């Protein structure tokens, strides 16, 4: 039986880098069997198969404005993964990303999977952050990295596939070590409320 595993994913990154656009693209591109409730573009879910499991991503958007920064821990507590988004056309946003990574390492959940998304790769003409920089940085912190274009639907799937691959397989003895992982038979998924 295919088991559904719920994974809380939080979106971090400067305002205007297209955090929610990536997710909107991800969520809308494929037909989802479960009619998932959403809150605008702020809370979205999507289920994708991964090996012999189904991964249900519960994606939490955060406000990117700096003055809401201190509220972020409330959002990322209990996350299995964090998608940190920067704008390849804005060096500042890559700088902010580094600060998020640092914070997650210090205060984030243990074993959180980090994925770096360089958005707006369709605008590589006015690129400010070289892909190489991002790749090197990602490697140094052991994160997934892709350049995406929410607009042209480039690499959005791959980003989440990358996360799925990084999620450690379920250890039956240590069920739910980061608080959000749950196992349930697929047959029951239909009558759940979210």
């Amino acid at each position, binding site marked *: 039986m295919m088991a559904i595993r*719920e994974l*809380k994913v939080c*979106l971090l990154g400067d*305002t*205007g880098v297209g*955090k*929610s656009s990536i997710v*909107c693209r991800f969520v809308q591109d494929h037909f989802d069997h479960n009619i998932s*409730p*959403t*809150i*605008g*573009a*702020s*809370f979205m879910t999507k289920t994708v198969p991964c090996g012999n499991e189904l991964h249900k991503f*519960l994606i*939490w*958007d*955060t*406000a*990117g*404005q*700096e*003055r*809401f*920064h*201190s*509220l972020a821990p*409330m*959002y990322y507590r*209990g996350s299995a993964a964090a998608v940190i988004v920067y704008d390849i056309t804005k060096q500042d946003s890559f700088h902010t990303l580094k*600060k998020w990574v640092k914070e997650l390492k210090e205060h984030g959940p243990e074993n959180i999977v980090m994925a770096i998304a360089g958005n707006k790769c369709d605008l590589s003409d006015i690129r400010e952050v070289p892909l190489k920089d991002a790749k090197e940085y990602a490697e140094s912190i052991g994160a997934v990295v892709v350049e995406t274009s929410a607009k042209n639907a480039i690499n959005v799937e791959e980003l989440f596939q990358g996360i799925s691959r990084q999620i450690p397989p379920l250890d039956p003895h240590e069920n739910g070590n980061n*608080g*959000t992982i*749950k196992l*349930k038979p697929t047959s*029951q998924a239909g009558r*759940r409320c*979210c």
Partner: protein
Amino acid sequence: MGSLLSSEVGWSWAFWAYSLRRHPAPMAAIRSNLAWFSGPESGTLAMCSPEEAALLRLEEVFSATLSRINSFVLQPLLEAEPSDPWGRECLQLLQQLHRSSQQLWEVTEESLHSLQERLRHPDSISLESLLLLHSADRVLQVHLEYIESYTSCVAVQAFQKAVKRRSEYWQGQRKALQQFLSGMSSEGSVGTALVQALRQPLTHHVQQCVLLLLSLRDTVGESHPTRELLVHTVTIFGNLQSFMRQELDQAMATQALWHTLSSRQRDVLCTPAHRLLQDSQDIPVTVTPLRAERVLLFDDALVLLQGHSVHTFDLKLVWVEPGQDRCMFHLLTPEEEFSLCSKDPQGQVAWQWKVTQAVCQTLRRKKDFPVLGAGLEPSEPPTCRCGAYTFRAEGRFSQATYEGEWYGGRPHGKGTLKWPDGRNHVGDFCQGLEHGFGIRLVPQASEDKFDCYKCHWREGSMCGYGICEYSTSEVYKGYFQEGLRHGFGVLESTPQTPQPCRYTGHWERGQRSGYGVQDDGDRGERYIGMWQADQRHGPGVVVTQAGVCYQGTFQADKMVGPGILLCEDDSLYEGTFTRDLTFVGKGKVTFPNGFTLEGSFGSGAGRGLHTQGVLDTAALPPDPGSTRKRQLGLGVFPVESRWQGVYGPFQDFVQAGCPGDLQEALLGFHVQSSRELRKSQEYLCCERTHPEDHAGRMEDILEELLQHRAPEALQQCLRKALSNSLHPLGKLLRTLMLTFQATYSGIGANKHLQGLAQEEVKQHAQELWAAYRGLLQVALQCKGQAPEEDQDAEARDLQVHRLMLPLVLPSFYSELFTLYLLLHEREDSLYSQGIANLSLFPDTKLLEFLDVQKHLWPLKDLMLTTNQPPGDRLPHFTRYSLVRDACFLSATECLQKMIQLPRCSTTVDPREKLEVLERTYGEIEATVSRMLGQEHKLPMDDLLPLLIYVVSRAQIQHLGAEIHLIRDMMAPIHTGGLYDFLLTALESCYEHIQKEDMRLHRLPSRWNSREPW
């Protein structure tokens, strides 16, 4: 028998001749009557039969005989003046005989008169006017009374004794008596002569009556109107004859018995009422296992004689049971069980029949008529009887008198047991023991005070739920086992006592043991923790009136080793301290600002607290909540077992298949008001509301559950059950509320107990759900249906949180929310300042201040939409905006419903609150979409500032307490999901509003500062 009768006839004729000689006047009257009768020329006389005339003569003679007996025999007998009590009793019997004789004479005279009238006017007075016919029953009654008085005198030899007392007089009368008592031998004693003189006229008279009435019956035609009456009278007189014969025989046998007994035995047994029915000397029987040389069956008692001892068994409380073989049968009595064995089956039949009939007759409280066991139903004595008995054997019941229902030799049913020392018990009995509901009063040293136990009993000791009011004015309400407090119970002293005290918790064999909460009114302290052998023992938490609380380990009522102490100023002390909260020994103080002081502490008289230690001011300020929000008791009192004594009896009840007879033992008994509790025992016992009357029988309760299994109906059904204190679920909830209040109200309203409280509420919901499931399974089983599958943990969690928790939360809400208020007091006050400050901002200023992007401002939109047609919801929106400068009003109003839910103002369902929150987001998005003219999905960058705006405008008080309570009560399945997100977003707004710039910023010209990271 035949010879006896004939001799009596001979005697009576002699007497008759004698009486005629002495009374010439009536003789003349008879003659004249006979003359009328014999005259064939008289047409009227032809209507009277010769039998009627003969009856008249018979009555005349009997009446005369009675008056002669009166003056010759009874009057002289009464003249004796006895000096001893026994003589006095005999005299009373003779007086009674005199009265009966008088009545007999009177009724005879009446009969005579009616016959005379009839003979005089046979044409106008019908046959049925004869007293013998129309009042045969009355005539019978008078005869029976005479027979009873007479046989009583015979049975105790009253005549012989009276004669002995005046022997000289009676010797003088001997000649006179002999003169008219034919057939009396000269050797016979005067006493015997008197016995005969008082019996023979009656037997003769009855015999003659029967004969005359029989022939009268034969004379009248089959269709004669009085034939039926005649037949009735004939039957009655016939029966009277048989009865008389039996009674006289029994009396003679009884009289004869006394001579064969020792004087001691005679003194015990010889009473006028006793009649010997059977004697083991006539039909031999032996007794096992008791020892008896002789067995006597009287009409009201069975007597075993052994040596000089006399063992009497009241027949009212004797049960006859067949034996294993045909020669024996068993007898059950309250304290003895024994068998009677005869030599042969005939003997067994005779004895068993006699005993059975005698028991029946005794229970009917009336002599069988005409003879013992004659055709009366039922011929078997009932197994259930009422009776009184005083126990003699050693044991609990020694000297106690039981009055009430019996079954097979044992108290069984309702009854009252009274001991000579004043103890008494009213209630249900089973198999000889207190079983079921019962009330016992136990008098205490001081005269008018007593302990009162209103409990369930099981096999003679208290078991199940009960209320005990002690003479010390303490009251215990809870469970018992084997007569001791056991399981959950509350012991409370009245507030008036000098040292008010209340214990709510577990008991073991009469002692506080396990988890329990005790209030010490004197010290203003509450102990929450483990007990053993009536002492505080194990981990415990103490909260005080002053707000200080500590946790430690107790041994033999004293705290041992180091503990944690939380002061009112949120400083924390870890170390050893005394009960008076003086720091002694090694310890560490953590101040709210993060400073620590570590060292050894001590105190001395007049020196105050002194310490040698290190003050560390370098430590970083800790997380502000670390000492302020420190929770006590977590982990040391596992929530699953904390109130096991409350859950346990219900689990056992369900396990046992919900037997109806244990319902009251589980739920306790119910009275309409507490006033009824003070009423008399008997009243309470009978008038208490039986659970079956009120909440319905257990079967109905189970049926109800079966009927309502669909989600909607189930919720209604559970709501109803939980609100009914007579329903097992309702009672369980009430008991849990009691424990919750005992722990967390009053002194217990301490923020450091919030953690304990919230996990307890969730556990209670879970246990109530389990209790429901248990009842449901029993209900299914009763119907022969397959039980429901066991739920997996997740399905159960979902039902608990979705269904049960919202139903039970209101019962705990007041105490629980208070704890949340206290815990989040500081944050809530900052937040209050925040919203108070923001309320000063006009809408546009606030939108600007919160950095809401201009294109999302609904104000723009307002101006555009003022001309929209009515019917749309916007004009309504606009109108408000115009008068009150308010935008996002729909969202704001929606959010406010979180604390004022429209449907029911008291609802505290966290799920409904989350739904309100969801609608609020919807309203925000709808407002924005409307304004932009297209559906707009808000990313968090845009949503959060708007949400902060709405939250600040909604001005919900104590939002922090609300949010945390909702989160704690939220189903774990929602973690990470939509509701979690909604709540987190709301919480982040709440946090944001507490920030300094929100609280203190005064109407800025423009927000432009980007504060550095």
